[in-house]
């Protein structure tokens, strides 16, 4: 007797890929192209490519011109984020054997090809603590901790990660933002842009829906004004115009360019997030507010406990795609002559030793951008199912 599982697969292949002549021809052509691309890529990555340009410039790509000897400031955040990733995966996701093998394979390639010395030690420690956190929080029952508490710890950990990083970057002399660079700068810009947007966006959305005209119209004006120009326009404004516009009081006109970029990103993402959240507010049935009113809840409690959670839940896919867009838009600060990831890549290929090595470098940064975006979109789809979207 034939194994049922193989039988099913064969059946599926026959039905979906070879059900008639036209389908079969298309399948063969598609398969041929896929194999061509796959082998081309495989051959390039493992045989033709010369990864030395990435290996030599690894520090530049990751940290830009971050002062040597100051890396310790980032180590706690790196380890903490690995721990939080481990805990989050164990709480909200499930790793099967295939995923674990794939993950190990990817990490092995990164370590074998790109990392060496001190960096490999630190990243190794971070990854190991992440794995430990995964294993430990998988067996949380043994420590008599409730799952809810574990979830709370993880969420607070994520919230505290950014402030912690900022504090560590500023204590004891600190590292000026002008020395931030590489993918680290992109991460910081995106984290601040997204966090600021999450805080101010819903407030703007509520303001735009407000009955008070003195709140409503400024919010509308702000949102429409910000959305009327592209992000790069605002960044240029921050670079060239803002210093002359701002008063010299408190040296406001001498604010560092990175901080100006952060302000622009927060302002920009707030406006877009506000409109997304407003869509969510409008999707709620009127009865929700009425039910809250009938119970005697005040305006604040209705908004905070009933309206906002549902409005945001309804727009998670659009929100996350805004976050992903913002993450990739952080490369635009390249226009402010900052060495973020793309700037660092361009600096790397400009070195005389590595003329003509663009493909290696850009492939490397493409994978980094893809990895972060992919993680965000996975979180989004996890949140959608977790929060039970659609099963009201």
């Amino acid at each position: 007797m034939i194994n049922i599982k193989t039988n099913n697969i064969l059946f599926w292949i026959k039905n979906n890929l070879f059900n008639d002549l036209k389908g079969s021809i298309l399948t063969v052509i598609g398969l041929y192209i896929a194999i061509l691309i796959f082998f081309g890529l495989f051959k390039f990555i493992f045989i033709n490519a010369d990864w030395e340009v990435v290996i030599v410039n690894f520090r530049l790509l990751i940290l830009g011109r971050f002062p040597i000897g100051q890396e310790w400031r980032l180590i706690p955040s790196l380890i903490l984020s690995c721990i939080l990733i481990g805990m989050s995966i164990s709480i909200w996701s499930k790793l099967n054997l295939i995923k674990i093998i794939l993950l190990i394979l990817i990490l092995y390639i990164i370590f074998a090809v790109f990392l060496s010395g001190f960096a490999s030690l630190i990243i190794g420690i971070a990854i190991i603590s992440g794995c430990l956190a995964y294993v430990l929080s998988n067996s949380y029952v043994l420590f008599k901790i409730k799952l809810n508490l574990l979830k709370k710890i993880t969420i607070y950990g994520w919230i505290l990660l950014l402030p912690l990083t900022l504090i560590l970057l500023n204590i004891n002399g600190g590292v000026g933002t002008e020395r931030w660079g590489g993918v680290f700068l992109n991460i910081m810009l995106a984290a601040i842009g997204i966090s600021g947007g999450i805080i101010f966006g819903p407030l703007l959305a509520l303001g735009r829906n407000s009955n008070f005209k003195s709140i409503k119209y400024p919010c509308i004006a702000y949102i429409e004004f910000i959305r009327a120009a592209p992000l790069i326009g605002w960044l240029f404004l921050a670079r060239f115009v803002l210093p002359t516009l701002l008063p010299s009081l408190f040296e406001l006109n001498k604010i560092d360019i990175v901080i100006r970029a952060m302000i622009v990103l927060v302002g920009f993402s707030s406006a877009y997030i506000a409109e997304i959240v407003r869509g969510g507010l409008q999707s709620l049935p009127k009865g929700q507010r009425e039910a809250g009113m009938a119970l005697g809840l005040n305006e604040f409690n209705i908004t905070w406990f009933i309206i906002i959670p549902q409005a945001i839940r309804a727009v998670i896919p659009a929100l996350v795609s805004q976050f992903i867009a913002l993450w990739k838009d952080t490369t635009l600060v390249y226009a402010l002559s900052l060495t973020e990831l793309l700037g660092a890549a361009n600096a790397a290929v400009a070195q005389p030793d590595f003329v003509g090595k663009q493909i290696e470098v850009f492939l490397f940064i493409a994978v980094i951008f893809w990895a972060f975006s992919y993680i965000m979109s996975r979180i989004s789809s996890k949140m959608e199912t977790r929060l039970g979207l659609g099963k009201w």
Partner: protein
Amino acid sequence: MVNKDNNNKNITTNKKIIICENVEKWYGQFQALKGITTSIKEGEVVVIFGPSGSGKSTFIRTLNRLEPHDKGSIKIDGIEINDDVEDLEKLRSNVGMVFQQFNLFPHLTVLKNISLAPQKVKNLSKKESEGLAFELLERVGIPEQAYKFPGQLSGGQQQRVAIARALAMQPKIMLFDEPTSALDPEMIKEVLEVMTKLAKSGMTMIVVTHEMGFGKEVADRFIFFDEGLIVEEGTAKQVFNNPKEERTKLFLSQIL
């Protein structure tokens, strides 16, 4: 005082808890309420019926100011309801409301749906409010559903949770706005049973419904609404057996 022949509950006092005088309400050019004058005693159960668009729902929604009325006066428990009401939230927590569409909070568990308002309005602790919630769930017969989300319950169960949620504020008056109209027939009974129990416990209730069997069992008084006016009111015997008005007769002949 109205004497009830079909249950042994008695209206304990003669205190009028709701007094409405000439209540009018417009939606633009359309006048939804054309001068409603009536009063409701403490412990009384009143059933309001009438054709759709007759202003029944609008009327009971003016009683907790979900719809502000434009003219006339409404007094609840001695307090005049208008824009000057000092503590609208407190007034509303004294007047529970159950909606046709349940309006449960879909993102909260049944337990949290019920315990949210006591926590935020009455400042009960989490433990106290959840204890209260379990008590009420017991009363409406679904304590085992406490940790589920509204979307996982049947319509009848959802409406029973909505009743428990309104009761959690320990209101003096309960308003029911067509509580069984959105339910499948087999679920209507379970909701009406809960409401019957509540009526017999002495709660002041105003119910907009066409469930006349339920009405005949528990209502002290029926009010027939048409075109924004009270056409006729009285006990079951008066309204069903000897309706005075032609319009009442016509409507009753259509629904009975």
